[in-house]
């Protein structure tokens, strides 16, 4: 029987220390703990082996894309258009890798939205792009003036419409046409944003330093726990974002025993056929960050199963995505490909639980990452 202090309960007793606190019949599970000494090394690897290379690749990719886009305007042909489209695919891959990092400079100054405005549920972005094309709005043909327009008109979604949307057939034939020059301006804008992100992460006394050295004077992380929690947050939020913003909008899985009819045009990059490659790059990036940063070093002994499970599930998701080769609207109605989508959704939920609850608990977040995510 527990001891009772109701009649004496005062300020001091209401705030009893845990050591003298009675336990309910169901005792709490013992807490795991973060391997504090591993944090700095993990953060260093995350920065130097994942984040910085990610933004460097993105900058290089956008430079190539911008060059190809300008060349298309000067020398329009099927070949130069193909170069632009190939560069576009490459930038989609690079962005889909580094976009899982939704903290730091990318969420400042609307950089994320300027690079990719998605989802566009009410087609507000699409309508603005179409208006620019319909009116030959010359202010959209230089990166400097384009930056002042809606973010929806200056990123990857807008460029995809320029390259693959209605009216794109003029691109290989029309020299210095409006549509091409608008596309080149978007590519220049992407290069500029990527350049800013690269520069921010390369500053030695900037964010990379803050990530690598948690401590009392650090502007981002006061201690190892805060740093490790945020790193885990990238993975948890990453999986949530992919599931809720990229997968479910076009296919929600089995609902009450019946497969979702789906909304193929809600799929990201459906016009260019980059939906599955982008999703694959998203999940590959999560696995790469997890392993490259050596996040298992954050866990106390005896938690190897969590690492194995996370890797197994992320790899299974990527393997399934890489096998979906039909256009989205056909994949949803094809039994074999839809089965893969169902399994992807199932594994996505599973890996989210593994990261949120199991990994979170193992590094000392008693109720998982999301529960302690604040509000």
């Amino acid at each position, binding site marked *: 029987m527990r001891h009772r202090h*109701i009649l004496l309960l005062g300020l001091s007793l209401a*705030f009893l220390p845990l050591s003298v606190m009675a336990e*309910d019949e169901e005792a709490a599970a013992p807490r795991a703990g973060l391997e504090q000494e591993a944090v700095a090394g993990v953060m260093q690897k995350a920065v130097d082996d994942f984040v910085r290379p990610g933004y460097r690749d993105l900058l290089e990719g956008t430079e190539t894309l911008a060059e190809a886009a300008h060349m298309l305007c000067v020398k329009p042909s099927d070949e130069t258009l193909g170069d632009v489209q190939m560069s576009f695919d490459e930038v989609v891959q690079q962005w889909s890798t580094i976009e899982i990092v939704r903290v730091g400079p990318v969420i400042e100054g609307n950089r994320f939205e300027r690079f990719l405005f998605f989802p566009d549920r009410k087609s507000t972005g699409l309508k603005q792009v179409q208006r620019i094309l319909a009116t030959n709005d010359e202010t959209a043909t230089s990166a400097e003036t384009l930056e002042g327009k809606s973010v929806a008109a200056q990123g990857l979604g807008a460029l995809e419409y320029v390259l693959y949307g209605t009216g794109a057939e003029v691109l290989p034939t029309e020299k210095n046409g409006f549509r091409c020059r608008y596309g080149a301006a978007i590519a220049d804008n992407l290069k500029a944003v990527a350049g800013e992100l690269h520069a921010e992460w390369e500053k030695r006394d900037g964010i990379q330093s803050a990530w690598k050295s948690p401590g009392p004077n650090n502007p981002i992380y006061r201690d190892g726990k805060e740093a490790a929690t945020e790193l885990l947050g990238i993975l948890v939020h990453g999986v949530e974002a992919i599931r809720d913003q990229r997968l479910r909008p076009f296919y929600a899985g089995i609902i009450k025993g019946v497969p979702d009819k789906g909304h193929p045009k809600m799929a990201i990059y459906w016009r260019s056929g980059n939906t599955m490659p982008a999703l694959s790059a998203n999940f590959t990036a999560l696995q790469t960050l997890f392993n490259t940063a050596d996040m298992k070093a954050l866990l106390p002994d005896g938690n190897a199963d969590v690492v194995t499970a996370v890797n197994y599930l992320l790899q299974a998701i990527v393997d399934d995505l890489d096998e979906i080769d039909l256009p989205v609207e056909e994949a949803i109605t094809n039994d074999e490909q839809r089965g893969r989508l169902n399994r992807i959704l199932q594994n996505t939920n599973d890996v989210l639980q593994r990261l949120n609850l199991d990994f979170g608990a193992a590094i000392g977040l008693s109720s998982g990452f999301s529960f*302690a995510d604040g*509000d």
Partner: protein
Amino acid sequence: MAYQTISTGQILTGRRTFLTMAGAAWAATLAPQAAFALSRTDAIYASAFMAPDGSYGVATLTEAGEIIERVPLPARAHGMTWSPVTNRAVAFARRPGTYAMIFAPDDSIEPIVITSVEGRHFYGHGCFSADGRVLYATENDFTGNRGMIGVYDGTDGFARIGEFPSYGIGPHDMTLSTDGHMLVVANGGIETHPDFGRTKLNLDHMEPSLALIDTATGALIERHAMPDHLRQLSTRHVDIDATGKIWFACQYEGARNDLPPLAGSFSRGEDIRFLDLPEETTLALANYVGAIAVNRRDGLVGLTSPKGGAAVTVDARTGRVVRRISLADAAGIAPAADGFVASSYTGTFGETRSRVAWDQHMVRVGKL
């Protein structure tokens, strides 16, 4: 803490009150252990929780933290409120949630679940009108990127009967003035959109404010923006002391090694004044106050920080810290018979630890 605090005299007479009212009948339906706990407590609280299997619910508890009853919830809840007049309590879904569940702590009604209307979601807090007949909820007009106050009719199944602006972005906690004529709303100033989950979309251009709103007309009475150098200080939670002074608590989105003020107070017609906490207290609160409560009788203000693992008690009159304790994953806080009772994500509530994760807020539902 968005709840109506009843007169402090009722705190110690709560047990007698509820045992002579509907509580007696309710007690007869409880398991023997819960009935025993109920018979010995002087106050009852309610808090949302997550169970070990990942399911969610709301529980009533004794002052010592013994669970009296649990009610399942469809999804995670956040803030709570209670009307002492009608004995209705509400658990609001955590943002960007779309439900709120109304229940009677003594189980005298079937719980009512309401859902947010199209184009809105709940922000996790709300409060009743003085007579308990109207429920107000903080909501997000995410297309218009503006905070709203949803108005629900407590006499008609909590049907939504209107709305008015919160006069800011990202309204979070709200409470009712002591005279019942004014809502106090903490507009956190952070833009979110359900398409982007819980992502904070405007950390580099936040607009936090505290708004006083006329309950009769929905008109703005006063609006207090944060000073320019504290634009990243998100005003999140509010409560009111016995003199009618409004107390607010903040979460700072700026540099982690800044030491911004984290709480303050003001009365209608006055400028806001920040609490000048000692540096070690500010450090202990980790730039993040998760909950605030006022003990009106004792003139105390309680603050908790899950990130800092701390619970702090401040003298409302002098602003002096009278107590600071370490409490890992500190969550809710509410007035107790003397001082405060606090809970935690690790299942601590007062002197008991249960195998649940208590959510960020609790409410005292003393009259049963």
